[in-house]
């Protein structure tokens, strides 16, 4: 099977869908000749022209607002925001307009749009260009939030997101862009709202997403040689969350660790833990549920401080060991 990068997978998904459906168009800053800040839309201007690869002024508010308006009248816009941090400038159209139009109008409107958001830390971009804000986005009913961790998932999920009749936030971790993975040729989609067990295990369930999936898998492989069997559950979609998959896994292993890069307080690990403790999985817990998350701090500039601000493989390993040896 061919191997392509996460970036290429996203590019391919957009190109293939734009060929198939003329209502799909990309709107954002520097997506034309420049090829997008992270090079995802390279070459697309030449194929689709300036109307459908619609470069904008620096106007995040209007980009997302226009995407909402166009979606309401039958187009399928994909808005690319340069950094996830800039979605903060566009929260109003996303959360007040796009998320609520269908409900407020008694079910008589649809807003099929995608907002693509490169996020996450590790590139030295510091506090205002490194955030993981999915916990805020998933709080609003009417929005869906997707966060793929592999090239394979990225392509299949983006296709589903574009075809989904609801506003979808598509979170791309910057450090994943260059990661290669096997991606079949030909069309395939991955449904939103379905998690994926990337490593089967029996001693502990690690619920995670994005780049933490990669780190957790590395730890799982290492610990399996010591007889500690780690199950890595990649949520893939944060809203709607595949709660049944989580419950089933915890019933099997009796132990839960949630790992995410987003900041701890108000972070979605709390949501997962609440889901588990309110479910029948509670009766099967043999250890307190734990979470390992970004620290409550803006992302620092210094590379060591930056690494210390979010979970690393060593941290994940130490936490798993502590849980399975009944340290808590």
């Amino acid at each position, binding site marked *: 099977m061919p191997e392509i990068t996460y970036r290429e997978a996203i590019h391919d998904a957009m190109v293939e869908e734009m060929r198939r459906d003329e209502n799909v168009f990309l709107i954002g800053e520097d997506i034309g000749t420049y090829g997008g800040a992270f090079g995802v839309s390279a070459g697309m201007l030449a194929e689709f022209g300036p109307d459908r690869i619609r470069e904008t002024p620096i106007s995040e508010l209007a980009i997302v607002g226009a995407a909402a308006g166009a979606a309401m009248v039958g187009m399928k816009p994909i808005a690319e925001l340069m950094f996830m941090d800039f979605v903060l400038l566009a929260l109003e159209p996303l959360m007040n307009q796009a998320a609520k139009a269908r409900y407020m*109008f008694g079910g008589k409107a649809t807003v099929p749009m995608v907002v693509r958001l490169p996020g996450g830390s590790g590139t030295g971009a510091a506090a205002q260009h490194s955030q993981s804000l999915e916990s805020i986005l998933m709080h609003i009913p009417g929005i869906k939030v997707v966060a793929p961790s592999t090239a394979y998932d990225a392509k299949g999920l983006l296709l589903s997101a574009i075809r989904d009749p609801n506003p979808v936030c598509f979170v791309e971790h910057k450090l994943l862009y260059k990661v290669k993975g096997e991606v079949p040729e030909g069309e395939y989609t991955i449904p939103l709202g379905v998690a994926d067990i990337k490593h089967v295990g029996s001693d502990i369930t690690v619920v995670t997403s994005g780049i933490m999936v990669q780190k957790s898998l590395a730890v799982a492989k290492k610990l399996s040689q010591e007889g500690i069997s780690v199950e890595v559950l990649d949520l893939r979609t944060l809203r709607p969350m595949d709660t049944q998959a989580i419950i089933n896994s915890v019933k099997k292993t009796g132990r839960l660790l949630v790992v995410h890069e987003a900041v701890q307080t108000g972070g979605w690990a709390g949501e997962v833990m609440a889901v588990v403790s309110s479910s029948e999985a509670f009766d099967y817990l043999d250890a307190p549920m734990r979470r390992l998350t970004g620290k409550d701090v803006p992302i620092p500039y210094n590379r060591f401080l930056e690494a210390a601000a979010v979970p690393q493989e060593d941290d994940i390993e130490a936490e798993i060991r502590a849980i399975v040896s009944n340290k808590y």
Partner: protein
Amino acid sequence: MTTWKKEEFDNFETTDVLVKSKELGLSQEQLVDMYRTMVKIRLFEEMADKQYALGKVHGTMHLSAGQEAVAVGTGFAITKGDYLLNHHRGHGHFIASGADVNKMMAEFLGKETGYCRGRGGSMHIADVTANNLGANGIVGGGLQLAAGVGLAIQMKKTEQIVLTIFGDGAANEGIFHESLNMAAIWDLPILYLCENNQYGMSANVARVSAKTPFKDRAAAYGIPGYYIDGNDVLAVYEFIRNAAENARSGKGPVFVEAQTYRYFGHSKSDRNLYRTKEEIDYWKSVEDPIIRFEKLLLTANLINDQSISKIKEEMSEVIDESVTFAENSPEPDVKDVMEWVYA
């Protein structure tokens, strides 16, 4: 006290309806119809106020009594099929564009038969299938959607325009600038109508807006702009119709600022402390759009005291019926509270 300087307007004041209507190609019937619609809006707003005072409306309302000429002039000037985006004081515009007052009243009372099945209320009334993309609870909310609708029209190459109506307050929101800039660079078919009723919530326009009239701000983006007497219904009709044609032609967006005045407070919590009773009375008597048009129609013998009473009676009945319809309509089923969050 706020008055306006008529010499600053781009329009000539309508003094003779027969001459003006010939100029604009309007029949006498249409003139009387315009008058009838303005009366309908005024009576509807007064009834909405009454329903509120009786405690039957949950929440609040933003009434547009005093702004009927802008609504009717605009509603008659645009083409059916054009997209409409409104602000939260939009009952008048909605009625002038042909909305069913029964469904409007039902929506205010939160009933299942309302335009939004009771889920939206006064601030979010919409009729998406008729290309009315709704009133918006966020000041300036429609300005961003308009950019997207204009973009879609351009990409689909239909002959429509999008009319986005907003107030003097919205002209100071960031989105005003992002939207106008975007519309200008892409020549989007957008008609920006700024309904300047001289107050945001309590802030007088002059106090909070650097550089008025707002058409000058449009000029900063290279967008042609006009500043007109919004209480002269035929002037409104003329300028909106021309602006719509220009926007439709692909030459790019057009900006019209219509000066008007509102009688009721901003919302139902407004005690009108920021303006005097004198001021309100002046506008209600001297500059009232319905009274002005009525005078002109009387002079032209297109109506008389009898027909005026008849029209008022008829419209009153229509409004009363809307209340009856709304009251007899069912509440939504509580079990359905989670419906329509996702498609």
